[in-house]
C-alpha cells in the first residue's frame, strides 16, 4: 500500500493510499452521491477531465462486468473513494474494480475522508486538483497548473471516431422487448452514454451515431426523422461547432437533447449558460415536470446550467429542479425541439424519466404526419 494524496488547487490536502494505475493525474474535483452504479460513473464520458469523489463509502463490492459499461473505457481523470473492496461478490462480476482502474490507466486514491472532500467542494466550489504518490507540494503545483473547466471543449476526447449504427437495446434489463424500428435518429455524439442509445432503440429508433464535429448538412444528408444531442463533458459554451450545427438543424428536424445536448440546444436558441458552484451529481435529484406536475427522481451529472431568465420567448421551461429551482428542461414547440438537463436514460439511476424517449418518438411522429 502506497501513500497517496489528493491535493486541491487551494492547498487543501487529503491523504490516503494509491489505487488503480500508478502515476499522477489532475482534473476538476467533483463528488457524486449515488450509492450504486460506480461502474457507470467510471465510464460516463461526461466525467472526462474530472476527479470523481464517490460519497458512498464502500466501492467495488460487485466488481465490474462488461454489461454495465457506458462507454468503451473510462474517461475520468481520477477516482476518490473511502474504501475499495478487493474481492467482489456478484453473479455478474468478471473482475475487480482495482484491476479495471489499473487496466485503463485511471489513477485513484482510497482511504480518504470522502465526506470531508465533499463538504469542501460543497462549501468552496469545484476546483482543480491532483492525485498522486508524489510529494504533496508537487501535486499542488500540478493542480494549480491544470486548466480550469470553464472554457474547455472536451468533446473531441470522448466522441466516436466515425459514423456508425447502434442496434442494441436494454434487453433483459429493460421494461420489455424493444419496439421495431420506425424512426431514423441521428445521434450527435458529444460523449454519449450507451444507455441513451439503448433507450432510443427500445423506443423504436434506428440509430446512427455521428462524431461531434459532424455538420448540419452531413446530418441532414443521413435523412433523419429526428436528431439527438448527447451528453458530454466540459463547458457547453466552448463547443461552438455543435451550437452552430444545432442552430442549422432547428426547425428542420425534431430535436432532443440530454445534459450537454440540452445546454447546446439552449445556447443555439440564444439562451446563456453558467457554471454552478459544485454542480448536481447523483441519482436522487428531484425534478418537477411542469406540464404534468409529476415528480421524477433523476440522475444528474452537470457542472453548468442554463440560465432560466435567458430563455427566448418561443422557448418554455418544462422541468424544474425542486431543490434549487434551476432549469431542468426546455421546449421550443415551434421547432419541435426539447431537452432536459438530467439523464432520463439513468444508468445509473431511477427509470422515472424514460417517458422522454417516447416523447421524442411522438414528436417525430407528429413531424412525419
Amino acid at each position, binding site marked *: 500500500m502506497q501513500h497517496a494524496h489528493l491535493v486541491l488547487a487551494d492547498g487543501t490536502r*487529503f491523504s490516503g493510499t494509491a489505487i488503480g494505475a500508478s502515476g499522477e493525474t489532475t482534473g476538476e474535483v467533483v*463528488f457524486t*452521491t*449515488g*450509492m*450504486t*452504479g460506480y*461502474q*457507470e460513473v467510471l465510464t460516463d464520458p461526461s466525467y472526462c477531465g474530472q476527479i470523481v469523489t464517490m*460519497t*458512498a*463509502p*464502500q466501492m467495488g*463490492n*460487485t466488481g465490474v*462486468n462488461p*454489461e*454495465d459499461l457506458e462507454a468503451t473505457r473510462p474517461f475520468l481523470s481520477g477516482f476518490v473513494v*473511502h*474504501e475499495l*473492496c478487493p*474481492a*467482489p*461478490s*456478484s*453473479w*455478474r462480476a468478471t473482475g475487480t474494480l482495482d484491476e479495471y482502474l489499473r487496466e485503463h490507466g485511471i489513477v485513484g486514491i482510497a482511504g480518504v*475522508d*470522502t*465526506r*470531508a472532500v*465533499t*463538504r469542501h467542494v*460543497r462549501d468552496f466550489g469545484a476546483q482543480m486538483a491532483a492525485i498522486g504518490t508524489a510529494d504533496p507540494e508537487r501535486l499542488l503545483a500540478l493542480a494549480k497548473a491544470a486548466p480550469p473547466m470553464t472554457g474547455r471543449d472536451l468533446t473531441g476526447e470522448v466522441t466516436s471516431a466515425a459514423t456508425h449504427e447502434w442496434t442494441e437495446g436494454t434487453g433483459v*434489463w429493460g*421494461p420489455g422487448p424493444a419496439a421495431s424500428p420506425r424512426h431514423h435518429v441521428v445521434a450527435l455524439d458529444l460523449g454519449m452514454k450507451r444507455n441513451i442509445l439503448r433507450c432510443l432503440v427500445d423506443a423504436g429508433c434506428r440509430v446512427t451515431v455521428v462524431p461531434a464535429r459532424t455538420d448540419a448538412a452531413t446530418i441532414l444528408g443521413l435523412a433523419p426523422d429526428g436528431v439527438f444531442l448527447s451528453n458530454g463533458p466540459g463547458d457547453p459554451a466552448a463547443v461552438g461547432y455543435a451550437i452552430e450545427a444545432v442552430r442549422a438543424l432547428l426547425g428542420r428536424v425534431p430535436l432532443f437533447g440530454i445534459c450537454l445536448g440540452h445546454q447546446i440546444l439552449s445556447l443555439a436558441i440564444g439562451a446563456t449558460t453558467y457554471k454552478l458552484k459544485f454542480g448536481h451529481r*447523483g*441519482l*436522487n*435529484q*428531484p425534478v*418537477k415536470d411542469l406540464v404534468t*406536475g*409529476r*415528480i421524477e*427522481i433523476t440522475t444528474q451529472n452537470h457542472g453548468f446550467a442554463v440560465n432560466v431568465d435567458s430563455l427566448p420567448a418561443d422557448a418554455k421551461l418544462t422541468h424544474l429542479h*425542486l*431543490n*434549487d429551482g434551476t432549469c431542468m428542461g426546455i421546449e421550443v414547440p415551434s421547432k419541435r425541439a426539447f431537452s432536459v438537463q438530467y439523464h432520463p436514460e*439513468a*444508468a*445509473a*439511476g*431511477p*427509470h*422515472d424519466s424514460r417517458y422522454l424517449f417516447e416523447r421524442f418518438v411522438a414528436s417525430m411522429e407528429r413531424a412525419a404526419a
Partner: protein
Amino acid sequence: MPRRDDLQKILLIGSGPIVIGQACEFDYSGTQGAKALRQEGYEVILVNSNPATIMTDPQMADRTYVEPLTPEVLERILERERPDAVLPTLGGQTALNLALAMHDRGVLERLGIELIGARVDAIRKAEERELFKQAMEKIGLECARARTCRTVEDAWATAEEIGFPIILRPSLTMGGSGGGIVERREDFDRAIRWAFQQSPVHECLVEESVLGWKEFELEVIRDRADNFAVICTIENFDPMGVHTGDSITVAPAMTLTDREYQRMRDAGRKIITEIGVDTGGSNIQFSVDPKTGRLLVIEMNPRVSRSSALASKATGYPIAKIAAKLAVGYTLDELRNDITGTSAAFEPTIDYVVVKQPRFAFEKFRGADPRLTTQMKSVGESMAIGKTFKEALQKAARSLEIGRDGLSSLLGRVDYRDVRDQLRVLRATGEVVDLVRPLALLGDRPEATTEELREALLEIIRTPLAERLWYVVDAIRVGATEDELYEATWIDRWFLRQLREIVDEERALEATKGRPLAVEELARAKRMGFSDSRIATLRDEPVAAQRESREGAGVERIYARVDTCAAEFVALTPYLYSTWGEQSEAAPTEREKVMILGGGPNRIGQGIEFDYCCVHAAFALQELGYETIMVNCNPETVSTDYDTSDRLYFEPLAFEDVMAIVREEKPKGVIVQLGGQTPLKLAVPLARAGVPILGTSADAIDRAEDRERFDEILEKLGLRRPDGGIARGMTQAFEVAARIGYPVVVRPSYVLGGRAMEIVHSDDELREYFSKALEAVEDAETQTILVDEFLEDAIEVDVDAVCDGKRVVIGGVMQHIEEAGVHSGDSSMVLPAHALPPEVLGAIRSSTRALALELGVVGLMNVQFAVRGSRVFVIEVNPRASRTVPFIGKATGVPLAQIAVKVMAGKTLDELGFTKEPWPQHVAVKESVFPFHKFPGVDTILGPEMRSTGEVMGVGETFPEAFLKAIWATNVDLPRSGRVFLSVRDADKQAACDLGFRLRELGFEVVATGGTREALARNGVEASRVNKVLEGSPHIVDLLRAGDVGMVINTTEGAEAIRDSRSLRRETLLAGIPYFTTVAAASAAVAAIERMAEGPFEVRSLQEYHQNVRFR
C-alpha cells in the same frame, strides 16, 4: 394538492402493548404522526392501550384514549368522538386489523368516517396471500411458486412441479409447527402426511424453497399524485429463512449493482401502485437468487413498520411524519426535508453504513426453541452507524450489551463440540435443550483440536441461531475457508470477507503484543470498529494503558452528521455518529447543556418505559432552557428521533463512546438514572472519570444496590426487610437457607428484570440454581448470591417518588394484584392501592420518605414493599426511574419524570409546585403481556424472573371495571357464561368457595378437581368433578382441548405441584383461555365478570380523567 380542509378531526390508532414484532417503533411513528397532524391544525384523537408510550402523553393529542384496542371499544370511541377520518397506518398490524374490523362491522360507513392512509381493498390485497400473488402476476412479478394443497396426491403433484427443496407450511398451526423444509424426494411423503396431521384444517401450503437466497427490503413512499420514492434499501446479512426482525440487516444494500437495484426499484413502484397504497409508506421484501439474480417478491406491508423506523433512523428521513402529511392531502413536492430545508420529494443518499442487530432473550425462556426461523423471536435491536460495514457491525455488536466486546471470541469459553451435540439432539428429536452449557457443567474433557472445532463450528452455523455471527467469526478463527462458510450459511461472500478482514486485523493486533502500536496501526484498528478494550485484550495490556496511548497519539474519533444527502447540502439538524476521519462536524455550541443517556436495545425488563423517561427528560430540560443531548443506540425509539432533543448522538452506550461525547460536548451534567440499568452501570466509571452526574450520586446508587451498605441504612431507619443474607459460594448459600428456612428467593446481586432470580424450595433446587446462575452473570465477576426469605402470601406494593434532597413527594402507591413472588414487571398493579389498610399505607409512605432522604436521592426513586398482615417489609430500593413511572403519568396526569429531571437540574419541588401526592378518583390497572405464544414449550407460570414484553392500562370508575378493561387490552376476553375450572391449594379453599358461589350466582357451571370440589360441596357450592392430569383421562386438559372451559382458576404450591400443572397452563395459553394463578387475581376477574353483567360502561379520555385527580 394541498392539505385537505374537509377534514377537521382525525383519529389515530396505536399498536397496543409491546410484543415481539411490535415494539417502540410504533410509538415513534404514532408520535410523529400525531405531532405532524396537530402542526397542520387538525384535532387529533388518539387510541392506544399502552401507557408507556410517548404518544399517549396527554399533550400529544387533543383527546387520548388509553382503552383496550378491541373492535367493541374502538366502535364506542368512534361513536363518542365522531372523527372525520381514521389513520390506521402508523399503528402496526394491530391498527390495520382494527381498521378492517371497523369497516367490516359497517361502523365506518354508518358513522361516515373515512379511512385515510390506506384503502380497505389495498390492505386486503397486500395481506391476503392469494390476492397478493394474483396482483404480482398481473404486473409481471414473480412470487415463490406455491399452492395450497388438501390431499397427499395434490401435494405430490405440486412438489414435482416446483422441484425440491420444498417448504411445507401447514395452515393454522402455531409457530409454524408441522412445517419445515424437505430437501429430498424420499422424505416428502412422511413430511406431508405429518403436516396435514398437524393442521387442524388438514391443509398445507407447498412452496418453492428460497432458503439461502439473498434478502432485501425497500422502504418506499407514494403520494396521491403517484409520486414515488425509495427512502432506503436494506440488505439482510442472514439469507432467506430468518425473519428480517431476527436478521442482522444493513443499509444501504451492499451487494447490488445499479441495474439489479433499479430492477428492484421498478418492481417496488409497480407493487405499491398495483396494491393501491395511495398515500404513505410501505415495506416491500424481495429475495434474489445469488446464482442467477432471479428476483422474487416475498411480501409487502402497506403501512409503516419496524423497518421503516430503522430506515428513518438510518437515513434521517422521517417516514411516519411524511406519511401522515401525505394522508391528509399533501404531495411530496409540497413538503420540505427538515434536515436540509430542500424538497421532501427525493431519495435519501447516505455516505455511511448502518447495521442493525437483533437482541434476543432466550435466557428468559427456558425450553424455547433457539433456532431462528420465519417467525420472529428477538425482543429488541441495536443500530450502529459507521463508515464501513466492519465498523458499524462491531459498534452494533457492542451496543447489544450481551457481554461481547464487538466480535470477541467465544473459543475457550464455550465447548463447541458440546453445542454441536446439543444441536444434533434438537434437530433429531425436536427436544429443546440448553444449547450453550457452561464449561463447568461439562466436566473434564480433553481440549478440542482446532480441526475438531472447525468441524463442529461448520456444523453449528448451518442452523441460524441468535449468536451465529459470533460462531461464524470463531469458525474463521479456527481456519474455516470462505467456501466452507458459504456452503454452510449462504451468507453472502461479501459479508464473509468483511468478517475475515476483521479477524485478520485481530491477528495483526495480537502480533503487536509487547511493543507500542504505531499510530497507523492503531488508526486502522479503530476504523474497523475495534474498541479500546478489545484492542487492549488482543494486545494483552490494561485498557487504561491502551486508552492513554491512543489519546497520547491523538487518534480520536470524529463526528459526522446524518443528513439524508451525503453532505450535498448543509445539515440543519445535529444528528451525529462517530467514525474515524479527518474532519469533525460536531460543532458543539456554547450553550449550557445536559446529556441524557438512553436505555439501549429493548430487552425484557428494560424497554419503552425507560425511553419514555428519557424523552420526558429532554422535554423538561428544554423547558428549563438547556440544550439537550441524547445518546442512544435503539432505532425503534422516540428518543432517537432527531426531533426529540437538540442534539442526537446515535452511539453505543459504552464507557469509551460516552466519554468521547462528554469530551466533545462538555455538558453541565449527565443523566444516568432514566434509561434503566444500561446508563446506571456507567454511573460509577463516569463519576470516577470526573463526569458530573446529575441527580442522585453514584455513591447513593451504590448504597441502595450494595446489600451490606443497604442493610446498614435499613437498620439505621428501623425498617424491616425479609430475613436473608449474602452468600459467597454454594456452601454459604446452604447455610443461609438453612437458617431462614425454605422457600427462599435467590438472585445474583446487580441484576435487572429479575434476571436469574428464583424461588427455591429445597437444597436440590438450590444446587441446580447455582450451576445456572453462574452462567447468567457471566459478565459480572461477582459470584455473590443473595438468599432471602420468601414472603409467601404477601402483597407487594410499588412506590415511585421524587425527592429534591429535602422534600419527598410520592407519585403513586401501586398495589400488586398477584401475590409476592411474581416479578414486579410482570405482575398487574392497581392505582390507587385499593385494598390496603390506612396504617399500612401510612407506613409505606413514611418508609419511602425516610429512605429517599437517607439516601440523598435527587430525582426519582422506586421502592418495592411486601405487606403481610400489617407488617411492611422493604424488598428493594432503586434510586432511579422505574418501569411504573409512565403508568403513573397516565393514571394521574403527573409527569413524574419531568418533575424529577427538573429537580436534578436544581429546582426544588416547592418551586415546581409539586408538593402533594396525586390521588385519582378513578382506578387504573396495569397488566402485563407475555411472548409465550412465540415460545412453545416454555412454562408460562409467573415467577421472580421477569418475562413480559409490554404492558397495558385499563381505566375505570371502579376496580372491577378497570381490571376488566386491562384484561381486554391484553387481548383476552372473559366469559359471560359457560364453565369455569377451579383447582386450588389448601390455603385457598375458603376463598375458592366464595369465588365458586359468585360464579354460580352469575350462572356459570363450575368444574373442580377432587379436593376443591369437596370444599365447594361442603359450602353448598355445586360443582362437577374433573380429574387432574396425573389422575388420568378424561382430565382437565382433555376438557380444555375440547373447548369446554371458559376460564381457569388454578393456584398451586410447591415445586412438584407447579410442575404437574404445566400442561394445564400450556393448554390454556394455546387456547386463549383466561387463566388465573392467584386467588387475588381470580377474585378480581370474577368481580370484572360481575361488572360485565351489569351492562356497558363508558370510554373516557385521559384528559377527562385527569381533571378529577386530587392531591393530598
